[in-house]
């Protein structure tokens, strides 16, 4: 019963978080300062996810991942190619594992 209630609660919470500022209280009604901040959500949140994955792993910080992340970011910024940058990053981790 606990599992069913927890799952149902999780479904409701995650759905409300998604529709709250789209349907219930559209972001256009938010104060000006909040609307000016919205374009920065993408770079900030995506980089936060990357940093959490690199430095918050239960296994500790893996130097190979950090080096591969620098390479991935550099290639992506230079070439703008997601597939190429991802392949370079995965390749760097694979090579580091072999060394």
């Amino acid at each position, binding site marked *: 019963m606990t599992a069913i209630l927890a799952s149902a609660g999780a479904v409701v919470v995650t759905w409300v978080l998604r529709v709250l500022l*789209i349907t219930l209280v559209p972001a256009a009604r938010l104060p000006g300062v909040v609307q000016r901040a919205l374009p920065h959500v993408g770079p900030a949140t995506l980089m936060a996810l990357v940093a959490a994955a690199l430095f918050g792993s239960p296994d500790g910080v893996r130097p190979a991942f950090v080096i591969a992340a620098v390479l991935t970011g550099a290639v992506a910024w230079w070439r703008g190619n997601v597939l190429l940058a991802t392949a370079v990053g995965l390749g760097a981790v694979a090579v580091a594992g072999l060394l």
Partner: protein
Amino acid sequence: MSVLTLLHSGAGVVAVVGSVAVINARMLLYAAALEPRFRDQSGWFRWLAPHFVVDPTFALVTARDDVDDPGTFRRYWLAMGGGMAVVWTSLVGLGVAVGPALGRGGGVLAFAPVAVFLAMVAPRLTDRPALTAAAVAGLVTGALAYSGALPAGTPVLVGAAAGIAAATLTWRRAA
């Protein structure tokens, strides 16, 4: 995933739902940023289609400036979200089935989410506010995550908020 992990550790309903809310609070930010694209859509779409708001769909749709037309956005969003749901679920099943056989290859694949998110965000870091947002968010989140002082999901939320605030201040000064 977090629900299963918490239930397995013996957490109660309130703890599970509260943790899920914190971990997924960034969806609130994503939704606010995507709201202009949902604004001229029909009611059913505004109530149901936000279901597809996740990290990859947000990253992909905000990288495009050719899907602003309501009809084009609706088709793009449903195709991308539906496709991603099918592929995501299939790959999770595949991972459960073949994951144990991957051996060291699994360690390499653990880096895949980091690589994909970095590859999607790096090309956008072309102006001062974007660089500020990413740098501050990365530094704050990295420090908080490394310290282990906050519960799971919270470092991302705090770091992202710090990055957004820093970039907004930079933008205002530059303007």
